[in-house]
């Protein structure tokens, strides 16, 4: 199966994602430049981390208008699996594919460390291989990961079980001390209502091999591979988009 990794000017985790998909998981991976208007045939879309457009204006604010985001949105609309990591998550928020917005980390520090996150929902395309409540050790590296949404949106997210990951202690306890950036409700990752679009601040692609300190990130990739191969999502088709 084929993963399409979208490359924006300033993406810098695109090669890490490519390595994880192709060399660790053994699946096909292809870079797609942000000016493309057609995803052709793809099974999974990854919006990688980095600093698209230099984080100018707001993180992800300019990338969301890249031509490739039209077919990405159409792919997501049809139920296609879309994963946004770090800046990719920020782009999903700016584009409205996921609700809410990012603020500066509460402590104003760029946080670069391994953290623990608890899998809250194991019924998304990217967590199907996890146990509910499972604790993953995955690195973060961001200055703006302080998730915010109005209280009515937070209530809806909790009611719909769209909070997929929360920062936690190594034993799985969600607490203020375990929250590196001040995110509301300790939110580290979300999904959309259809549960096919997932965004998270931690970097699973940097945690796919024991030599990197953790291989827990593999579970996200194994989840989507299993979901696609067992036909939970089978809509492999050419997603063509013509400029209007």
């Amino acid at each position, binding site marked *: 199966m084929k993963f399409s990794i979208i490359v924006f000017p300033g993406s810098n985790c695109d090669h890490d994602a490519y390595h994880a998909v192709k060399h660790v998981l053994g699946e096909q991976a292809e870079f797609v430049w942000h000016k493309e208007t057609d995803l052709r045939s793809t099974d999974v879309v990854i919006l990688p981390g980095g600093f698209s457009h230099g984080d100018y*204006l707001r993180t992800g604010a300019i990338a969301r208008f890249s031509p490739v985001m039209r077919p990405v949105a159409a792919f997501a609309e049809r139920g296609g699996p879309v994963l946004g990591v770090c800046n990719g998550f920020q782009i999903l928020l700016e584009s409205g594919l996921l609700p809410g917005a990012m*603020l500066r980390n*509460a402590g104003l520090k760029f946080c670069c460390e391994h953290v623990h996150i608890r899998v809250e929902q194991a019924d998304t395309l990217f967590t199907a291989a996890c146990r509910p409540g499972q604790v993953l050790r995955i690195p973060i590296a961001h200055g703006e990961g302080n998730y915010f949404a109005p209280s009515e949106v937070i209530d809806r997210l909790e009611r719909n079980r769209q909070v997929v990951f929360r920062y936690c202690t190594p034993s799985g306890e969600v607490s203020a001390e375990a929250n590196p950036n*001040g995110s509301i409700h300790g939110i580290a990752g979300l999904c959309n209502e259809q549960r096919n679009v997932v965004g998270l601040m931690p970097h699973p692609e940097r945690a796919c091999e024991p030599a990197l300190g953790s291989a827990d990130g593999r579970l996200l990739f194994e989840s989507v591979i299993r979901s696609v191969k067992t036909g939970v999502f089978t809509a492999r088709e050419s997603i063509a988009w013509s400029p209007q």
Partner: protein
Amino acid sequence: MRARVFVTLKPSVFDPQGRTIADALQSLGYASVQDVRQGKYFELDLGASSADEARKLATEAADKLLANPVIESYRVEVESS
């Protein structure tokens, strides 16, 4: 024609940068500074033929790109030259 757009975080949104600036001012002896909110300021040079048109353009730009409605609000001023 020039339009000015002021973008600020909504009152309900915590502004850690503004808070840090307020703390810095207080430590400089400005005890009367109670809070600071940091925002963004844009000057748009527009080829608009009227103030109304300039305001409309700047408002559209703010809605679409300059401000994120989830966390920010904005104000537009038009300066006729």
